[in-house]
């Protein structure tokens, strides 16, 4: 038994205020404090802040697209690249930031084995990946014929055979359109299979996944990413979900109004207002920070549009019956009016959103910024002074075309922990973490209380995983910790021949080798699906 003594304890399950009292741990989990025993170890945490470890809901650190992206960072000399750390480094860096659970946002089934190989390297953290299917021919066909039974079976089979945790949709139908030289479909436009529209895909997939009872609902990257004026389409996409449970990712990239000049202005207010109507939705922000970034996305339509504008080399790999792997290096500049508005819009979304347990901090690493910039974003959220100072350094469009300057709200520490631990854990269906109630995993971060917010969040005093300290004094100990989290929704085995014959008509690989090719994954933990029937 371990007791953490004397700290200010933040348990987001009990609100945002800190609680006094000791935290008891046994066998890697939090337990109810005991009066009758003397603990083996007491950790003196006076002057410290204790909170549940961070939970990353959307990052890109594994898989084939990252090996493509690393070509853009090749240069002579020592390699230390915060944008594209190796999977092993990424796990260590996340631990050093106080995160013990990390979800990579995308693998396509055809390249699932590359993702799995990388996930295996991420010792020290619990981790998983989401399976892309928004351009999967089999799924789209089933949805087009409104055969929901078959669609559910395909989703369950795809997620299982790819070793994934959730279903991810990226601008559904957009990849298919690009391959056929069409522009990405609008929400109510046919995507080229029967009368199926993007609205249908969103609505029916969300329904199917919720019926399967998967721990995380559909993880949605909507249409029109990065386009000025896209907030209208995004709000319509939110409404298209018809009050079902879902997660919307990196919504900063979808929250733009249209400035009379044709450029960006913030659409944050409209988006937050719309989100407020649907309490079953969660979001992550995809904050941009100034400096180098690397766009890594399955959204070929959006990236080819950006690439044509920037006229810079990109690496694009199109995948049969699925989406694509697309890479484009970027730099976000503070004096660029568009970038300044994007930066301010992300902060505005976070600051306007009343419930931090529904709107999470991400940078869509490495698309918006490296995840190592989280402490800087947290400082901007917690200090209006820091924000106003930062606003002085960026193009005036950030003041003129967003509402950021007028926002007085400052996040409390409790709200930060709700936003980075409790909320994402709950959205991911991981009830054993993100809080400090008895029974929760003893995944804990400890900070020394100080005025320097950024410094405090950048260097925890220590980090605990399953009741053992894995990071302290600059040393990370990852050995033997962390599992690959998977979901294996039930599907009808009798459908397999049907799936097999449909798929073999579309792909160039034998069915037995598709996705993980039947490889038995090691070191996994299945998070149960709780289907309540169809």
């Amino acid at each position, binding site marked *: 038994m371990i007791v953490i003594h004397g700290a200010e304890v933040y348990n987001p399950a009990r609100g945002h205020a800190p609680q006094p009292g000791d935290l008891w741990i046994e066998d890697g989990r939090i337990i109810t404090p005991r009066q009758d025993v003397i603990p083996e170890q007491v950790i003196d945490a006076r002057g410290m802040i204790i909170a549940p470890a961070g939970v990353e809901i959307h990052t890109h650190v594994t898989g084939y697209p990252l*090996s493509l992206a690393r070509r853009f960072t090749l240069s*002579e000399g020592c390699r230390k690249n915060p944008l594209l750390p190796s999977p092993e480094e990424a796990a260590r860096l996340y631990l050093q930031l106080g995160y013990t659970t990390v979800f990579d946002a995308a693998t396509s089934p*055809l390249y699932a084995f590359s993702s799995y*190989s990388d996930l295996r390297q991420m010792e020290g953290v619990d981790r998983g990946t989401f399976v892309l299917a928004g351009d999967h021919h089999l799924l789209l066909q089933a949805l087009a014929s409104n055969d929901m039974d078959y669609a559910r079976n395909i989703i369950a089979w795809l997620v299982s055979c790819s070793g994934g945790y959730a279903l991810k949709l990226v601008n559904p139908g957009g990849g298919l359109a690009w391959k056929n030289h069409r522009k990405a479909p609008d929400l109510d436009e046919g995507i080229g299979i029967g009368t199926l529209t993007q609205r249908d895909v969103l609505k029916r997939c969300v329904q199917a996944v919720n019926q399967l009872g998967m721990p995380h609902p559909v993880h949605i990257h909507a249409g029109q990413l990065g386009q000025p004026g896209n907030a209208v389409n995004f709000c319509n996409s939110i409404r298209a979900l018809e009050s079902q449970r879902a997660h919307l990712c990196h919504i900063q990239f979808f929250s733009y109004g249209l400035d009379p000049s044709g450029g960006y202005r913030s659409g944050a207010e409209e988006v937050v207002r719309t989100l407020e109507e649907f309490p079953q939705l969660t979001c992550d922000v995809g904050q941009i920070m100034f400096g180098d970034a690397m766009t890594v996305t399955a959204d070929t339509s959006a990236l080819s549009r950006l690439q044509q504008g920037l006229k810079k*080399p990109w690496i694009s790999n199109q995948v049969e019956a699925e989406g694509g792997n697309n890479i484009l290096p970027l730099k976000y500049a503070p004096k660029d009016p568009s970038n300044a508005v994007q930066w301010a819009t992300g902060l505005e979304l976070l600051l306007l959103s009343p419930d931090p347990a529904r709107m999470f901090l991400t940078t869509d690493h490495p698309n918006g910024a490296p995840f190592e910039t989280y402490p800087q974003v947290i400082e901007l959220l917690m200090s209006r002074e820091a924000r106003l100072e930062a606003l002085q350094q960026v193009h005036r469009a950030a003041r003129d075309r967003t509402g950021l300057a007028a926002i007085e709200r400052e996040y409390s520490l409790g709200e930060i922990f709700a936003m980075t631990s409790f909320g994402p854990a709950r959205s991911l269906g991981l009830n054993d973490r993100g809080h400090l109630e008895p029974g929760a995993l003893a995944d804990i971060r400890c900070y020394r209380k100080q005025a320097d917010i950024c410094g405090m969040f950048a260097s925890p005093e220590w980090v605990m995983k399953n009741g053992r300290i894995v990071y302290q004094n600059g040393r990370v100990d990852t050995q033997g910790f962390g599992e690959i989290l998977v979901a294996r929704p039930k599907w009808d085995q009798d459908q397999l021949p049907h799936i097999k014959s449909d798929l073999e008509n579309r792909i160039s*690989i034998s069915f037995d080798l598709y996705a993980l090719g039947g490889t038995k994954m090691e070191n996994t933990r299945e998070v149960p699906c709780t289907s309540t029937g169809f």
Partner: protein
Amino acid sequence: MAVVLCSDLPQEAVPAALAFCQQHSAFLVTDDEFSGSILSLAMKEAGTLSASLGILRDCINRVICCGGDILQTLPRLEKFVPAVNAGHVRFLEDDNPLAALQNLRLETGASAANMASNLDDQQGLVLFDKNWLQEDLHIAVELLHWLADLNRGQRWYSLYAAPAANSLGICNALLSTAGCPGNMHVSLAGIEYDPRQFRLHQLINNGWVDTCLIAGNPSLMPAALKEDLKKVTTILLSPEPTDLKPALTLPVARAGVDCAGTMQRLDQVPLRLQPLFTTSRVPVEAIFNSLTGRAAV
């Protein structure tokens, strides 16, 4: 010491070799620098558009082969790109590929505007290998620039005909775990990358290494480099005999024959190979792991 990873190995060899190199502060190179550093640097410079074989099968109606003999090295390609069968193939057989590509770029630039129409029935494939590009970075960059030019008005994918079974798999696994595709020095202090200096013949001739651990069959290694290897002690971990005369040979299992392993297809789709039968041979990664473990004790 230098460790040479050969292109017939499965990608599982890579993390084990890296850990070994880190422990011994060793150089890590591949037997196929073109598929690794040179092509990667060309992609960094000019980008590329590629597609998995199923897309090429279903969509491609024109093919440009860079080099006359490239199709002979890919006998099964016709199965995946029916356009090859249908005779919609044009060969670039110029002895001066750089000049040929520069001319093509001029032509393409002039006609890009005209080509913008009628996209639907025009999807092409540029097929290339390292021979025609003379293993030269500048020529490779020019080829990829031309591909980008073509893509202003039409849709052209590229397909690199890698010279060995898993050239690209080893390159991608190195990029994923080490951040660069070979030509590196690995130590506890970190990884240093130098595609000009950290090449095997340089390492040997500069006297920076006295031992070479060659993993796999170095079938792509040029004859001159094999001569260089005579100047140092070589240890070979190979599934089959080679024309090298190493000081020590440890036979290892072959992925897909007597052990499992992951290799990448022509389009870099990972394929998980299962063993056909069991033998006493161990996979190369197991040897690296035990060498690393022994030194740690």
